[in-house]
Every structure is written in structure tokens, then in C-alpha cells.
């Protein structure tokens, strides 16, 4: 379950920010998950709920899915990534390392593998909210 590794990263990063911002309790963590990585959201949510330390006891994890938008560097065409066109092996490889998309996906207009991911690659920590030390 690779989602656990991603959840650990989210908790570690959120804990670092909470520490920096002097929070004693985290109430909300906003996470953006890109479609390219095809993260299983229920597994990610479960992992987050199991991994959260005491400071996150009452925290809500709000997960927003971002469409994977790609732009061809050769012809400029923009398009959205669709998993259904990929075979299982390609889909799984992209799940673990989204950059291998360059092996399996080509620009639908010109056929080039030289594209950039404008948005929706992987997991991002968008924001956290909480109660500062010393606040009631």
C-alpha cells in the first residue's frame, strides 16, 4: 500500500508546519491529490486516520482531487489525462512514479512524449489550520 508512504509524508510535512507556526492542535489539513498518480483516496484517508499523532486528534483531512492537465512542449496541445486508455501495467507504473507517464502517454495531437504536467501530478499539502499555543 503505497498510499501509506504518501500519508506518512503528509503527516510529517503537516507536523513540521504546525511546529513552525506554533500550533498546539491541528484542526484541518487540506490536501490536493493529482489524478495522474491515481491514488486510492479511501486508502489514503484510512492511512491518514491511522497515522495521525495526538496533535491531529481532532483534525479533519480535506482531500481535493485535481485533474491532471498535460501540455505538449512540441505542438502546445493541452489535454486531460485519462486512465482508462492505459493498460494495467502502465497504470500501475505511473501510480508509483508519475514521471514514467512520459513512457506510456503521448500527445494525442502530434504523438510526442515531451509534455509537461501543468497540474494534478501527485500529492500536495495545501494548507493547515489549528489552534496556536497560548490560545484558548
Amino acid at each position, binding site marked *: 500500500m503505497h498510499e501509506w508512504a*504518501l500519508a506518512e509524508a503528509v503527516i510529517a510535512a503537516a507536523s513540521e508546519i504546525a511546529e513552525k507556526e506554533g500550533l498546539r492542535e491541528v484542526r484541518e489539513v487540506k490536501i490536493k491529490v493529482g489524478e495522474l498518480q491515481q491514488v486510492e483516496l479511501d486508502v489514503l484517508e484510512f492511512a491518514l486516520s491511522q497515522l495521525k499523532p495526538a496533535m491531529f486528534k481532532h483534525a479533519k483531512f480535506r482531500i481535493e482531487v485535481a485533474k491532471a492537465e498535460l501540455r505538449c512542449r512540441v505542438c502546445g496541445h493541452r489535454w486531460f489525462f485519462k486512465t482508462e486508455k492505459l493498460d494495467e501495467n502502465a497504470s500501475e507504473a505511473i501510480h508509483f512514479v508519475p514521471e514514467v507517464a*512520459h*513512457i506510456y502517454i503521448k500527445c494525442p495531437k502530434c504523438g510526442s512524449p515531451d509534455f509537461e504536467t501543468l497540474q494534478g501530478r501527485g500529492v500536495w*499539502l495545501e494548507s493547515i489550520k489549528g489552534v496556536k499555543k497560548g490560545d484558548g
Partner: protein
Amino acid sequence: MVDPRMSVIDERLRGVGKVVAVSSGKGGVGKSLVASTLALLLAKKGYKVGLFDLDFTSPSTHKILGIEDVHPKEEKGIVPPIVHGLKYMSMVYYSGERAAPLRGADVSNALIELLSITKWGKLDFLVVDMPPGIGDATLDLIRLIKRISFLVITTPSQLAFETVRKLVSLLNELKIPVIGVVENMKMNPSNTIRQQTEELGVKFLEEIPYDPKVEEAIGSTSKLSNTELAQRVEKITPKILEPERDKPQ
């Protein structure tokens, strides 16, 4: 927005003793052969060793070691399989033998992804087969891995050594330990590379004669272990086993 992967890399490498980046200024100098052989020799000595092929666009250590039909296990992350006594990780698990046309930013992203999801467990040494040069992967590893030191491979060619000079200067500037320089594919007796290495303030570790048998040994660890190259790499292992030197001043 924050990339959360950075925050977990230290944790993933917590059980790893020394990270040895086998690097070169340019390609084609035998870096992957030295990295693979070094990892094998350290494992034969009884150390816990990982080999991480970071040459994403041209991975070759799996070919050198004859590794096929193995895959990492998923266990709340990725656990590399143990092959020939090594924990072995490579992009080929995901790319297969297809060309991976990655730009610099993609190389960085893939590297960070693998560092953040790979669970190495306890290792005495993690040998990293680097892509040649001072591109994104080199800069990222320097940025992300605290206990890293470099083993630099060159050939007798001045073209190769000029690129080594740049790599070593950068590493010195950034205060990253350089274990030393190895001169590979030596065909004629000459002290030039040794002298030039020492002028850079770096140890010259060993010269490896050009050995046509190495090509025949590709894919077979038993044949590889019997090459002159392996005997010479064996000679540098004491330098790898030394505790990490102080960073250059």
C-alpha cells in the same frame, strides 16, 4: 502548497549508514560497472548493502548484474527485493526496457518520489549509481541526503578528467566529502590522472586496466567477480569502509 515528500526522506534513510554516490563527469567511463561491483563486494564481506540505480534515462546496473523478473514489494511503501545479497532498486521496475524521455524537472520529481516511498530498512551502505555530470539528480541528492560522499570515476582521457575536475570542484565548494577518484580503462602507464587528481586535493584511489573480459562478464555476477576490474575495486573497499571524513574546509 507544500510538497510533503521532502519531509519523509530523512525518515526513509534513517537506518542507512553511509551513502556512496558513484559518479562521473561524463558517461561511458564504467561508473555503473564500478558501482555494481562495489556493491557486490561489500555485500560479500557481510555488510548490508543497497544498490540504487539513479541513472533514470540509461539504467544499466540490472543488465550488469543479470537482474530480471524481480519486483519490489508493497508494504506501506516500496520494499526493494534482495538480489545477489543486495537490496536493489531501479527505475526499470516501472519503465521496463522502454526509453524514458525525462527532462530535468521530471528526473528530480521521480528521484524525490523514489526516495520518499522506498523503505531501505537497515543498511550499512547504500551505493548509488548516479547519472553522469552535475545535473538535477546530483544536485538533488546533495540537497536531500545528508550523509552522502562521492566516489568519482574517470578514464585516462583528458576529456573525461576535465569533467571530473568540474564535478570535484563543485563538491568541494559545497563541502561534500569526496572519497576519491578511480581511473578506469587504463591502457598505457601514466601518472597524469593521479597527479591531476592530487592537485585537486582529492585522493587517487586506484587504476583499473582496460579489461576486454568485462564485456563478457555482463549479466553474470560470478564472471564479474573474477575480472581484473573486481580485483581493483576490492582494493578500494577499505576506503569505503573508513568512517566518513570530515567535510572539506
